[in-house]
């Protein structure tokens, strides 16, 4: 009987004793990344980017495993904040984990920069929450400008009736200054003739589609059957290799805007030298996240409020291209027009 209690007590004791051992405070940045579990590949990319960025800099990087899970990440951020006294954190990779830790960071005045979470709700959590991965706002605004510049005043929108589609629709509605005819369809629709025929009757100048791969394929097929041939526009989702392969020549000529993430400069060559392969975008955004935070600490000190202000006024040119942050702390990146040619994305400018 005694043994059992000793076993449990010693486990708890180790936590407490080891927790008390740490007291010094050098300059530290915490990283919460999926370092084990099924999403490790994202953590590895983050770690490679951050390792490369922190090389030769007088700053300590403390990694904690968030496993891409809300519960694990909550414990990880508590550990970084309260045991290591860290107030500047990069993480998590997955949106679910970031959504769980962002309110904790905000409440405790901790700067949190996610290099790869896509959920649009993340930056809205507070002024200490930032993200360097691209958001879809800029690409849709780019699209709206392009439509106006091409004198398409009457545009039809075919979109998916869910949060994902509604989010994109509302961005387009607020940024496009012409007549917009919106027709929604269920996700994984079996038939889209009804919305498509409605669109055909209105005779728009161009059609914008916000849909998932399967729905986009069906829409393109039925548009051809219904003889609807208008200029087509969409978002980066079109770059899905499955879509490009299955769509055949139907996807030819689709125009969309894509964030201008061009991995460049010394980062690319350093990365190739160290890891022997092409860097993934997440490695570049993690590299930039670290450098932005490092520059911020160097110029305004480790105070969260000052760092947040510094980042809001920042125009940064890094390994993942040019970026700045909007009022929410969401990243703004330059977008470029692209066009699908022979099932491959090409820069619109080059293709003309």
């Amino acid at each position, binding site marked *: 009987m005694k043994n059992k209690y000793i076993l449990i007590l010693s486990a708890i004791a180790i936590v407490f004793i080891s927790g008390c051992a740490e007291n010094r405070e050098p300059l530290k940045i915490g990283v919460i990344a999926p370092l084990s579990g099924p999403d490790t590949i994202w953590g590895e990319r983050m770690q490679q980017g951050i390792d490369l960025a922190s090389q030769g800099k007088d700053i300590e990087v403390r990694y904690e495993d968030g496993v891409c899970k809300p519960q694990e990440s909550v414990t990880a951020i*508590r550990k970084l904040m309260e*045991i290591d006294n860290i107030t500047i954190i990069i993480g998590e990779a997955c949106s679910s984990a970031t959504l769980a830790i962002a309110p904790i960071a905000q409440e405790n005045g901790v700067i949190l920069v996610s290099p790869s979470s896509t959920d649009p709700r993340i930056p809205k959590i507070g002024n200490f929450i930032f993200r360097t991965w691209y958001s879809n706002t800029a690409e849709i605004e780019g699209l709206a400008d392009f439509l106006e510049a091409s004198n398409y005043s009457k545009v039809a929108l075919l979109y998916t009736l869910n949060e994902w589609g509604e989010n994109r629709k509302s961005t387009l509605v607020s940024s496009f200054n012409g007549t917009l005819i919106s027709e929604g369809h269920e996700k994984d629709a079996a038939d889209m003739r009804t919305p498509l025929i409605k669109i055909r009757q209105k005779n728009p100048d161009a059609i914008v589609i916000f849909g998932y791969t399967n729905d986009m394929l069906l829409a393109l097929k039925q548009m051809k059957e219904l003889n609807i041939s208008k200029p087509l526009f969409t978002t980066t989702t079109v770059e899905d290799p499955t879509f490009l392969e299955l769509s055949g020549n139907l996807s030819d000529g689709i125009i969309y805007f894509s964030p201008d993430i061009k991995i460049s400069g010394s980062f690319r060559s350093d990365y190739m030298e160290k890891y022997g392969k092409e860097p993934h975008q997440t490695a570049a955004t993690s590299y930039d996240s670290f450098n932005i935070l490092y520059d911020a600490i160097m110029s305004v000190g480790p105070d969260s409020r000052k760092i947040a202000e510094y980042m809001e006024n920042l125009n940064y040119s890094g390994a993942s291209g040019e970026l700045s942050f909007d009022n929410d702390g969401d990243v703004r990146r330059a977008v470029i027009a692209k066009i699908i040619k022979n099932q491959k994305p090409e820069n619109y400018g080059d293709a003309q």
Partner: protein
Amino acid sequence: MFPYFENLIILGSIFSILSVSLNLTMGYTGLFNLGHAAFFAIGAYVSALLALGLGMPFWVCIIAAALFAALFGFLLGFPTLRLRGDYLALGTLGFAFIVEAVLKNWTDVTRGPLGLPGIPRPELFSSIEMYMLLALVFLAATILITHRIVNSPFGRVLKSIREDETAAQTLGKNTVRYKMIVLTTSAFFAGIAGSLYAHYITFIDPTSFSLPVLILLLSAVIIGGLGNIRGAVAGAFLLILLPEPLRFIGLPSNLVGAGRQMIYAVLVLVILLKRPQGIFGEHNLRGKRK
């Protein structure tokens, strides 16, 4: 640094409520119930949706969560409780997968894989210290009620079902009814745990309740010892706390993830090799008493 420990105690308490209630079915009644994580999920989603969608106060949410989970426990009992052993395990596992699929695909209500962020903390218990007290009170209540159940004449029938269901039936006990009640009760507590989890983490998505959670719960019950309340609590706390010291041993940064997982796995294996019946176990999975 205290919120870090309070966080661990909250998580330990939530998982203890789950393992104590799973123990009620698995340890005491011998039902190999793999649907427990699904009741956890139902509790969490019901509570979160009531709080976010209808702005219900926490107390309403947690009671609704428990009742909903209990209802699903009752419904699951109809088709599965006439099954035994492996068939019951597969039947309940099937239920767990159905629940996960519904949470992922019923996007109008659950928002699917996007998950539900911003679940409010209960007003009085919004600080982490108070929430810890709340979780501990619920854990204490769960332990107390479970203790009363298993030490009552009702509990003795449960144990007799575990030891030999046919013998219990020949003594005139309606074993299906007993199993139904115990599964419903167990699901009720899982619903409470789900609600506590949702309002603590403040974000839930379907993957928060998938297979790894079920495996954690099964491990907690088995490591703690089947058929023992102290064991279930100890098992859950051990599995929550055991990975934590490994954060402090200073693993090189490229080994933080993998190294921690490996040491954790080895420690769990050592415990099970040293005590196959679990820390407090009186009953192992093969059905033999020690």
